[in-house]
Structures are given as C-alpha cells and as structure tokens.
C-alpha cells in the first residue's frame, strides 16, 4: 500500500505511468488491468466503460477499454500485449466502481499475456512507484486526490 498526494497507488502492482494504468500478475498466469486512482481522479465520475471483447488480441499500449466521464471519452491502454480472456461485466451497470475501487472491483479486463517478462520490464513496480507518480502529478499540476 502506498499513497501519493492522497491517491492510493499500491506498490505491489505494475504500472505504465504515462498511460496511468496498472497490471497485476495473477496466480493462474493471467494479468488483470485497470485505471489508477490518479487516472480516476483526473477523469471524474466514470459513466461508461466498454472493454474490448473476450478473444481479442491487444498490443501493449493500445486500447483495452474505452471510458467516458463528464462527456470525455478516451482509451485505457493495455500495459502488456495479450489476448482478452475476461471482462468485468459488472462495470456496465456500475461504472462508478472504477472511481470507488479502482484496484479491486473496478478492474477492467483480464489478459493472457503474450510475453509478460519482456513487456513488464517496461513497467514500474515496488519502491519506484511512489516517486514516479509524484513526478507525474507535479508535472501535471495535480493538487491531490480529494483536493
């Protein structure tokens, strides 16, 4: 657990800091992905989320889901390449979960990674996480989650 400017950014996850997304390697070899608490704060209340369909292949840094908030629409970019093996259907009826529980019930898709070892090398994890997000928040003039 780690907090940066009031945003929960757990240090046991893997992040693409530029894309503001997280990945978690599961015991069964799949990778769960979603938006960070910081991304959710920048977006505001999420009103729609459309994940890519199960069976689709998504390249690293390409769109794995599309979210809408405050009339803004944009992609959630896959932190790793792979095939979508599950999507969080609960988000279609309760997209606000992305704001309230971004690393838990607000997960977006599970992927079967094409090459986790190579792709995850480009991601930030552990002790480097807090500093990387703090630098990003400073560069983007962000006051803090809940500010």
């Amino acid at each position, binding site marked *: 657990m780690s907090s940066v400017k009031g945003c929960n950014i757990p240090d046991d996850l893997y992040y693409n800091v530029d894309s503001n997304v997280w990945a978690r390697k599961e015991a069964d070899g799949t990778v769960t992905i979603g938006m960070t608490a910081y991304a959710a704060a920048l977006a505001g209340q999420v009103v729609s989320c459309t994940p890519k369909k199960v069976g689709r292949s998504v390249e690293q840094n390409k769109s794995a889901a599309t979210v809408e908030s*405050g*009339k803004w*629409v944009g992609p959630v970019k896959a932190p790793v390449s792979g095939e979508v093996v599950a999507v969080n259907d609960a988000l279609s009826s309760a997209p606000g979960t992305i704001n309230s529980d971004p690393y838990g019930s607000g997960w977006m898709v599970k992927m079967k990674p094409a090459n986790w070892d190579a792709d995850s090398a480009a991601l930030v994890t552990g002790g480097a996480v807090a500093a990387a997000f703090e630098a990003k928040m400073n560069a983007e003039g962000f006051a803090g989650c809940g500010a």
Partner: protein
Amino acid sequence: MNHWRVIDTGLRPAAQNIALNRALLEARQAEEIPSTLRFLRFTPSALLGYHQSAEQELNLDYCREHGIAVQRRITGGGAIYFDETQIGWELYLHKRDLGTADMQRISRRICHAAATAISALGVDARFRPRNDIEVDGRKISGTGGAFDGDALMFQGTLLIEFDVEKMLRVLRIPAEKLSDKAIASARERVANLRDLLGRRPDAALIRSNMVEAFESEFGVEFGDGDLTLSEDQRYRAALREIDHPDWVGLVNRPVADMPILEAAQKFAGGLLRAAVTFDVQTQTLRQVWFTGDFFANPRRAVADLEAALRDLPLARLEQKVEWFFASRAVDMLTLTPADFVAVVRLALKQPLLASNP
C-alpha cells in the same frame, strides 16, 4: 509566441466530419500537426454519443424518411441533431498546452473562452457546468471531448437558427412531447443567436471572435492553414472505418433496456403526468418529462426541473428534486416537490419495468 492553426473544413456529411475528428486527434498525438482550431458544418445528421445505442436514442424511422444520416461521435455525452443551422468548433490540443490533466478543469477553461467569444457578438454567454454554454439559462452551445495519450479534442456546437422541433422529432421521446405546447416549452430551454441578435450573425465574425478568444486564453497566435498530407491519409483510413454500419452499430442495446414509462396522478394542486426514459441496467433516469394540468410560475421551471433530472441515478431522485425547489422560487399553488417525486416513482412501477429485471 506559439503558433497554432485554424482551419475550416466546410459543410460535410457526418461520416466525413467524424473521420476528420479521428484523423486530427491522431495527427496531434503523433505531433504531426500544431494545436488546431477547426470550424465545421454538417448536412442533416443525428449524432450519437460514443457509448450510446441508436435504437435507444433515436427515432430511426423519422431519420430514414427525412434523409438524416445517423452517425456515432468519438466524444461522449448525449445524442444531438446537427444540421446547417449550427456551426461546429473544435480544438485539438496537447496536454502541455493546458498545464493540467484534470478533465473537468480543461472543459471549464475551454468553455469559458468560447463563452467570451460568443458574448463578443452582443449576448451574455456563460459556461454552465458540466459542459454547456448558456445565455440567460438557455443552451446555446453543447460540448464534449475525446483524448488519446497526450492529445485531446474538445468540440462544441453553436446554435444559429436551430430548429428545436426537428431535434425533438429526431430523438426518441414520448409522443406528447411533440405537442405545440411541449415544443414551445423545449424552445425556451434553447437560445438561437439569430433570435437573440435579431439578425443572422456574420459567420466570419463568429470565427474571428473564437480565434481571438482562444488566442487570448492560451497566449498563442493563430494562422490559417489547410489539412496536411498526413491528416488526409489518416482521414481516408478513418473514413473507411467510420462510414460503415459496424461503427454506427458499435454499441447496440435493445430498446427494452431503456423503456419510456408513463404515469399520471391527481394531486391537490392538479393533474401531473410523468414520462421517464429509464436505463434499467444502471438504474438511471435518462430523461423525465412532466405534463398535465397544473400551475407553475415561472413556466420554464418545469423544463429546468426536467434538465436537472437528466442522467440522474434513481437513488438520488428525492434529494435532487428537494435541492431544485430549495434553490429557486417557483410558485406552484398547492402542488409540492414531493408530488413530482411521487409521479416519477409511479411511472417506474409500470409493468414493462418488471419484465426487464
């Protein structure tokens, strides 16, 4: 000083305009073009928000019969009718132009500048959260945005001599909202520049006001430009995808998931009818219409209440209605705020809802 580009892509069908949205956003993301202000116009089109379903939002028979193209935007928000009586304006920016990544702050800043430009024509235009520009409480410009990586596109309409009745016929709404009285009431929520000014505004003046307002807001200088070769290539690729039924049908939800439910109830203060478009899946009131035989002054209070209830989670209905009537003076004789809540709740108990668990 930074130099930005202004282009005018003229009157086009919706598919071309949306394909240009995609092309310019991609080109801005790839740093192939400078930040850009684009003016555009549409041949008659019904435009869905990115996440909307045509069956749920539009009167598709009417669109077919009247040659109105149905298209999907890449931006969020609700379905709109766009034709030659409106002007579109769009900004393609890089996040570093803005000094913030907070999407609400970005919307506010751009809308404030656009409102300044509209006001310079001689009306009092102001930003209304979340995403509209209004003159005296009447909408004159609706907006929405899309982003990809560090690039973003923000777009707005500007109503010049907009036909409210045509818009109502294009959208999927209850039949009684097409009565003369209901159409007159809808007109009171919308501001046309031609009506406000008493003459048709000069399109060149609108463009130069917009240019000046954004120059001043962002500390930049605009120069006229044309589409680049790379934009044209991206546009052709985007058009192949967007000018296609698969794109328009990208989100396709059945009408049964968003029924229009109706009820009428007699109160001490008069007869009140409610029609509710209800999103069963998210338990959200998409839109509510009130009609009936009751007194309300000012008359537009009912239309304002309808606007306040748009896209409202059902759980917040009581709270919102209470807030609405507490925050303004409305004379309704003996009709009470609780009566409005009661008739909406009654509408939601209609059998159709029960058959859509």
